[in-house]
């Protein structure tokens, strides 16, 4: 990922009239990776971030707020810091752009040690988006976005083009929103502009501090989807702080679960954390919902659908009686003329309704399609009083039934498979690590000899 040749990042940049002006500068900077600055500023794809024993000790407090964090964030990946409030996740994030000065340890971005560089210059290379957008209310949307490009000295025409491009990128019509003031925007729109401002000078690294914490759940969902789409285009290195574990699962390539003093409890993929939490703290944080959350990732089509005795509404009554009597179950499913689930019939129902199909049985309340998640299916099964739900095809026609037992068995199988995967994954990681250590030692030895 760090060496991706796709230097131009977004396709739009490549089309923009200013791309030509920016292009040579960028590629020049990219080759000059040893340079003191500029290399990080204009490298279009993400840069690695390495935190080494990063520590923050506030004067007068016995324990450090952040205690010796070691972390390696790959270029172009989204890493989520998640943890209880007060665990130091925000502090850790703010140390990366040195809004909070670390009292110990090093920070390297794209291999370059930035722990002692001018913080103002450093921050211009790092996008920063915060909760409630942090837009300046006395500036128009366009001026807000133009701030960082202006500070780093882009020519005017390039800035103007970039502002339009960024608005377009975050899904706001440039013509309409350009001249607006932040207070004329909805919360979601403000947040989009906030992200546009953070990305305006094309920083390789983007820090997001609970950016979607202050918007309503529906808008938050949209913004998360947008961020995923953006990231697919831009491949920035994103460090994202949240206390919402669901948000972490949705967005993260990897999740760092932090405990107090920002100690890393587990740093792994969402799947691995869900199915194989490292310890009680992590499983506590993942919550009792881990299995339920896992259900969101699997669809009805992936599990076994059982057959169920059915009759058509047009079938003679005698057939219905026969099926009810001979069947292994107490119930049969009555289908309407187009083969859609209509009613559940029990043995006694017909007798009570005096032989009339129109009056007998209970109407089918809910069905699920094969594309529904297992969570939806479970929901339907739970609300049904007999513990099963009919699965339907594209036009609503009956295809089978999922019941509680099937669901439980499938979930157990899934979790078991995940667990095996996770163990294998861990073995693999350990092997890689061992290999790396070995290689490092070899390399050192070679260097000493040479």
């Amino acid at each position: 990922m760090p060496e991706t040749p796709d230097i131009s990042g977004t396709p739009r940049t490549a089309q923009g009239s200013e791309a030509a002006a920016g292009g040579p500068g960028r590629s020049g900077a990219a080759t000059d990776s040893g340079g003191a600055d500029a290399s990080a500023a204009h490298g279009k794809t993400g840069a690695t971030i390495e935190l080494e024993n990063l520590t923050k000790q506030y004067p007068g407090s016995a324990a450090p707020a952040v205690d010796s964090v070691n972390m390696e964030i790959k270029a172009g990946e989204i890493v989520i810091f998640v943890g209880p409030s007060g665990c130091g996740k925000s502090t850790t994030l703010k140390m990366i752009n040195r809004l909070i000065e670390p009292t110990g340890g090093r920070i390297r971005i794209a291999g370059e040690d930035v722990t002692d560089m001018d913080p103002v210059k450093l921050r211009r290379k790092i996008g920063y988006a915060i909760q409630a957008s942090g837009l300046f209310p006395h500036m128009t949307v366009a001026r807000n976005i133009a701030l960082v490009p202006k500070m780093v000295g882009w020519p005017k025409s390039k800035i103007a083009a970039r502002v339009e491009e960024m608005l377009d990128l975050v899904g706001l019509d440039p013509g309409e929103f350009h001249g607006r003031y932040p207070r004329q925007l909805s919360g979601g729109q403000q947040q989009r502009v906030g992200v546009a401002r953070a990305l305006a000078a094309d920083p390789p690294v983007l820090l997001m501090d609970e950016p979607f914490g202050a918007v309503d759940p529906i808008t938050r969902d949209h913004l998360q989807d947008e961020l995923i789409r953006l990231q697919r285009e831009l491949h920035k290195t994103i460090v994202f702080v949240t206390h919402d574990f669901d948000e972490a699962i949705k967005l993260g390539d990897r999740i760092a679960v932090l405990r107090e003093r920002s100690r890393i409890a587990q740093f792994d993929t969402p799947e691995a954390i869900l199915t194989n939490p490292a310890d009680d703290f992590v499983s506590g944080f993942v919550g009792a919902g881990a299995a339920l959350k896992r259900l969101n990732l699997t669809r009805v089509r992936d599990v076994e659908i059982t057959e169920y005795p059915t009759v058509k509404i047009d079938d003679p009554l005698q057939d219905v009686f026969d099926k009810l009597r001979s069947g292994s179950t107490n119930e049969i499913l009555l289908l309407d003329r187009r083969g859609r689930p209509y009613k559940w019939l029990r043995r006694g129902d017909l007798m009570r309704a005096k032989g009339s199909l129109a009056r007998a049985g209970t109407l089918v309340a809910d069905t699920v399609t094969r594309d529904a998640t297992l969570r939806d299916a479970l929901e339907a099964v739970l609300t049904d009083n007999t513990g099963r739900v009919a699965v339907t095809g594209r036009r609503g026609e009956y295809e089978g039934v999922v019941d509680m037992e099937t669901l439980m068995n499938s979930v157990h199988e899934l979790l078991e498979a995940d667990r095996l995967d996770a163990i294998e994954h861990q073995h693999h990681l350990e092997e890689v690590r061992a290999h790396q250590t070995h290689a490092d030692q070899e390399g050192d030895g070679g260097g000493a000899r040479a």
Partner: protein
Amino acid sequence: MNFWEFVSSTHQQLLTDAYQHASAVFQCMVVATVLGVLIGVATYRSEWAGNLATLTTSTILTIPSLAMIGLLIPVVGLGVPPTVIALTLYGLLPVVRNSIVGLRGVDPTLVDAAKGIGMSRAARLLRIELPLAWPPILTGIRVSTQMLMGIAAIAAYASGPGLGNEIFRGIASLGSANALNQVLAGTLGIIVLALLFDAAYVLIGRLTIPRGIRA
């Protein structure tokens, strides 16, 4: 001679006095604004310094204006100098106080955001904090100006410029034909000037407060 006849017969003198009055207030306000905002900028970050600045300027305001000018005369003499010094000192308090309140009232997350996107301290102050604090500062300037309009009348006591001269002359010759007219002309003149200045501030507010933060 009724009041209007008096005004039309002495309008030359009245206009000169009114002009000098307005000019004195305006110039002192400029100095007080610059000083007041500078003091505000220098002290708002520290609880202690900010409170000291507010306390000092409000103590100055409690000195009776007549006494202040009287005390200044032996030091700087008669005429313009004591007027300017007194007016500037009196004008400081609202500006200093509103600068400090305004600058402290800027949403800390915005300052954090400004820092986070790489603005230097000076840029933050000039482009974020002062513009956002400008509406309360302008209100302070407006209040100061209204106050100085009245206080400037006392300047005539130290042979200073302005409409106060009309008032003092009238008071000195109470009982004579035009005494009351003189006092009235001076007072009304000050009121008219105050209203004109206020209108000017409304206009300045409209021109200088960005639409995004206008109430």
